């Protein structure tokens, strides 16, 4: 009686490759990836619900970014506002989105030296105690970085990363002035500018878009 030799099962290439640590490593990477993305999406949904609640309870406290398109854009493009009737040649054109109400519901509270008076029912009447004559096109040339979003926005990075005073690259922080749109006007299209305004910056920008920037930054003149 001859002993039977064990039958050798052919192992597929797939099994050979994924038999070792590779399968575990890929699964580990995948799990981490899914976890992080889930947390991010979950956090986003959570904050969205908070904003919706606060908007219902106290609409005046809700800032411009949560209304899209932002009413601030309507203020800027309002043709009756004499300050905004003309723009600099190098400045991007801001087009008003259709069906946008010009009513301003914001109550900006500037912390910089520029003071703004902005009532919910009237068009913005900004007054600047530092420089009495508002300059045109400030929105294109100079604005404030509020929460880093201007820095993070893709088209603005080329400009934002350059310090107008030193010429060196730097990261903007809250309260920095962004100057340099005109150095690369092709990047700062009206679409993206609108997006910037529709994000976190609008409320803070409200005093600045109709007035010159604070004199702390002379390069923005």
């Amino acid at each position, binding site marked *: 009686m001859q002993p039977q030799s064990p039958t050798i099962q052919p192992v597929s290439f797939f099994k050979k490759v994924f038999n070792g640590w590779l399968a575990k490593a890929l699964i580990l990477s995948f799990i981490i990836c899914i976890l*992080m993305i889930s947390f991010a999406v979950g956090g986003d949904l959570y904050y969205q619900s908070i904003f919706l609640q606060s908007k219902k309870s106290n609409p005046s406290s809700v800032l411009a970014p949560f209304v899209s398109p932002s009413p601030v854009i309507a203020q800027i493009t309002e043709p009756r506002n004499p300050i905004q009737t003309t723009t600099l040649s190098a400045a991007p054109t801001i087009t008003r989105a259709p069906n946008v109400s010009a009513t301003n519901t914001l109550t900006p509270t500037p912390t910089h030296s520029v003071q703004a008076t902005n009532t919910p029912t009237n068009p913005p009447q900004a007054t600047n105690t530092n420089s009495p004559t508002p300059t045109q096109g400030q929105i294109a040339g100079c604005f404030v970085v509020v929460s880093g979003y201007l820095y993070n926005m893709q088209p603005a990075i080329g400009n934002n990363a350059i310090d107008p005073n030193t010429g060196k690259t730097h990261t903007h922080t809250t309260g920095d002035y962004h100057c340099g749109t005109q150095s690369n006007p092709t990047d700062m299209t009206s679409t993206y500018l609108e997006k910037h305004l529709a994000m*976190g910056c609008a409320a803070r920008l409200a005093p600045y878009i109709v007035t010159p920037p604070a004199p702390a930054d002379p390069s923005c003149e």
Partner: protein
Amino acid sequence: MKKQIIFFTSLVLLSILITLVLYSLFHSFYLVTQGSEKATEILTKASAYLFFLRLTGTLSLVFIGIAASLGALRNVIFSFYKNTSFWKIHTQWASSIGIGMATSHLTIYLLYEWRLRVPLTLKLFYPNFVHFNSTSNLVFLSTTALTIFTINFIISNIPALKAKSWWKPLHIVNYFAFFLVLYHALFLGSNSSEPLFQILYAVFLLLALSGAIHRFYIYVGKMKNKPPQAPIVQNSTPASTIVQSVPPIALPPVKSPSPTPPVNPTK
């Protein structure tokens, strides 16, 4: 002994630094969630994505940095730390977690842009030859780095491919990719202006660069001393034999001396 002290002190300092960096990230997020006036302004609709974008970016830098530093300094570490189990940190854990974090970082970036209604086009990744520090350039560089890491990660875990002669040059490209990541982090990182983060970048740069230079000189020395017609032999030092993913062989326990008295040969 002196090397060990330096190594473990550096390890502790690096751990403290990473903890502080992560604390800084979480603390800024905690402030945002407190509902102060400033926080309300900062808290925009994409803030959750932004937070996780920063978190995954920082963690991927940390883990890939650990993997790269261990790879670069392996000869130094092996000279006084013979236990091969730590090598799994380079080959398995740090690289897996780092690549997972980097992939989620990229995905969350796309989600973040989508949330801000920025059109998801290839423009987000195009190289920009006019403005070198533009975001699209920096994203392009980091995507290139992630591709290099992933290809290397997969190939290194397939023994048949790892045995190929082109594996090592391909694996060394990881250092180049790591420097791209550092460049990306320095110029695009939202917190890169903070000294804590700058120290972290500097530490990883120093570790990877010093290790890479050290290994380069070893390689040059080997090339100089190589006889012209010498046969190709894997000249393996204890460090290089253990190099990749070869699990340490579990030796059977040494038998203790038998308690029975030795047999008298004269019997």
